[in-house]
């Protein structure tokens, strides 16, 4: 019976439902049978199986499991490669022909779109645009409040004037610069077993109470924003735009950081995910910039770690996918097919279990159990054990997600990951800080 419902929803009778996929969808939750049917593939060209699309992106979003699942559903091949952010921008800017789908953070659009290496996406060919969270489509929360535009608010770079546009449109058009995929809100991680009092402000990162036990991320563009959030929270500087500092603001920020470093405030500066996990787990550091899955990784070692919601808000980031300019014909059709598949739910369900949000939560929900959805998106206590996408233990029953529900977390964004106009100057000053 559910099968026929599913067929009706998909609006096609010729699709095949593999037993596995069918079970997974129906098993997810009653009444969510639509999840069993993604409606793919929709292209039936003879030579589609010869198509291979290479997606290059960050390790947190270009995940091989997603490529495998897409390949299985779509009938053509998706391959993935990972690069760290600098290398990623370089590769896409200087060797655009060497990949097909760019999986990039929104701030990278400001560097890449003007180079004309990506191509705009015809939103009429993207099925889920009306279901994408309004942060991306309108720059607003569902209640109409504006989202903070400090840093690169995705909305500011979301629309192009035309398919081959190299400038961003002021408001919505039919051409998207990229399809939003994964996003999240970052904050400070801490050890609640060592810091027993509540931590409520970013300024605690610079609090001498934690001297020699704090760390900050050594990726200049992100580290400087975390530092700015802490400095502003302490009341030293009131920034015009933390995401686009003036030279003077950069100078002051770096001077404060150098003072803090010289007085021994920082234990370390980390650049990779596992460094941040080890610093926290070993007790070298008790409060630091952190990414959501790193907090989980510390907890997986049975060491308490809390991703603490702060009054000033979160530093948010978001990724989007765009086809490269050189794609045409069947390959471009395949790219549209893939982008539609990507937001059709499987990927959203997968990354939700890593603590990330999908730009189309509605479809992701169909690939999560009710308990998982309530835990990750609704901020409700887990009814049973929470597992990661690979089935390993993450949280015990009864645990509540740090920071609460989707809108409690994403509704309080202080600024977005970005690249400043004065980036070169900032990087130079940041290097002075690191070598001071």
């Amino acid at each position: 019976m559910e099968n026929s419902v599913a067929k009706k929803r998909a609006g096609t009778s010729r699709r095949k439902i593999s037993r596995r996929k069918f079970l997974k969808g129906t098993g997810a939750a009653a009444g969510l049978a639509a999840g069993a049917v993604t409606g793919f593939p929709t292209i039936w060209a003879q030579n589609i199986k010869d198509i291979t699309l290479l997606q290059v992106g960050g390790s947190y979003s270009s995940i091989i499991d997603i490529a495998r699942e897409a390949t299985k559903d779509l009938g053509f091949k998706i391959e993935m490669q990972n690069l760290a952010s600098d290398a990623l921008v370089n590769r896409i800017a200087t060797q655009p022909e060497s990949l097909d789908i760019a999986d990039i953070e929104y701030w990278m659009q400001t560097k890449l779109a003007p180079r004309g290496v990506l191509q705009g996406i015809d939103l009429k060919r993207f099925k889920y645009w009306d279901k994408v969270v309004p942060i991306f489509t309108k720059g607003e929360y569902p209640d109409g409040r504006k989202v903070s535009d400090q840093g690169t608010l995705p909305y500011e770079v979301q629309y192009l004037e035309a398919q081959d546009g190299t400038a961003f449109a002021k408001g919505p058009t039919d051409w998207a610069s990229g399809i939003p995929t994964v996003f999240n809100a970052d904050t400070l991680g801490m050890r609640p077993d060592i810091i027993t009092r509540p931590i409520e402000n970013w300024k605690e990162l610079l609090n001498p109470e934690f001297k020699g036990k704090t760390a900050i991320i050594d990726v200049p563009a992100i580290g400087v924003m975390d530092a700015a959030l802490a400095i502003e929270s302490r009341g030293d500087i009131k920034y015009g735009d933390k995401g686009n500092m003036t030279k003077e603001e950069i100078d002051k920020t770096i001077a404060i950081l150098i003072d803090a470093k010289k007085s021994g405030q920082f234990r370390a500066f980390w650049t990779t995910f596992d460094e941040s996990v080890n610093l926290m787990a070993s007790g070298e550091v008790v409060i630091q910039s952190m990414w959501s899955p790193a907090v989980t990784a510390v907890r997986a070692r049975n060491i308490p770690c809390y991703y603490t919601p702060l009054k000033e808000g979160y530093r948010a980031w978001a990724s989007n996918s765009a086809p490269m300019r050189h794609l045409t014909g069947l390959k471009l059709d395949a790219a549209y097919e893939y982008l539609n598949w990507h937001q059709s739910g499987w990927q959203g369900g997968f990354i939700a279990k890593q603590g990330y949000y999908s730009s189309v939560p509605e479809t992701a929900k169909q690939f999560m159990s009710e308990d998982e959805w309530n835990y990750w998106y609704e901020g409700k206590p887990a009814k049973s054990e929470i597992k990661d996408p690979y089935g390993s233990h993450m949280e015990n029953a009864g645990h509540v997600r740090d920071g609460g529900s989707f809108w409690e977390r994403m509704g309080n964004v202080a600024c977005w990951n970005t690249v400043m106009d004065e980036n070169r100057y900032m990087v130079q000053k940041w290097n002075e800080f690191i070598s001071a």
Partner: protein
Amino acid sequence: MTSPLQRIAPYLQVAPLTLVLLIFFGVPLLVVLAVSFFDYDEFDIYPAFQLTNYLELWSPTSLNLYLQTITYALVTWALTLAIGFTVAYFLVFHVRSFIWQMALFLLCTVPFWTSNIIRMISWIPVLGRNGIVNQSLIAMGLAERPLEFLLFSDVAVVIAYVHLFTLFMIVPIFNSMARIDRSLIEAAVDGGASAWRVIWEVIIPLSKTGIALGSIFVLTLVMGDFFVVKIMSGGQSASVVLALSNEIAVLQYPPAAASAVILLIIVTLMVAAILRIVDVRKELAG
């Protein structure tokens, strides 16, 4: 009467190596030199002839970097030399049996069976705040609270360097010591020289080829490192090459090239100074 073939034979013999060196070393080096004068923006480099990249190196930040890197190199050199010389001396002059000598020598190389990175990272749990060293010190009552300077500090960087690079000192010194004619030492002792004087006036002068070669290895390795500094200082210190690799990461090839050229000149001068003091070729031939 030499045939033409015989006359050109030596040239043919050196040709393959010359070609390889020219294509894979000479040409890239010239490209680096050329690029170091180029102009650049965020993504592209533009042919030009400007000294900006070099002038920008003349800043307190980069002078500090050079100072720090050279300090690391000298401290590491002194420690590896002291340890390397002692170990080689022990192996050559105290271990009588040749079998044992070789066995112990091979033992020195055992750590090299794992990767550099693993050997370096293993220090982190040893030196950390809750690491083996600190826990032992506290248990023995030698320290009241963990010694924080052990990890993510210059001390940690030097410890890792010494651990990683001492073998490069041991091997050449061992090699040149092993070739010292024992009768020279006997003669010195017969002549009334004390053990220290034998070391100072016989062994050191005769193993200076090994010392020179070891010094070249250690100094160039430290000067060219960025990974050890980054990890062991917890990102709190930098080195010349670390700054250079940061520039490459953001596509700033011209300043990175300028930095590479200057580093090359400094390291070449260091090696030249060592070779001037010790004629490695002559001693190797002898």
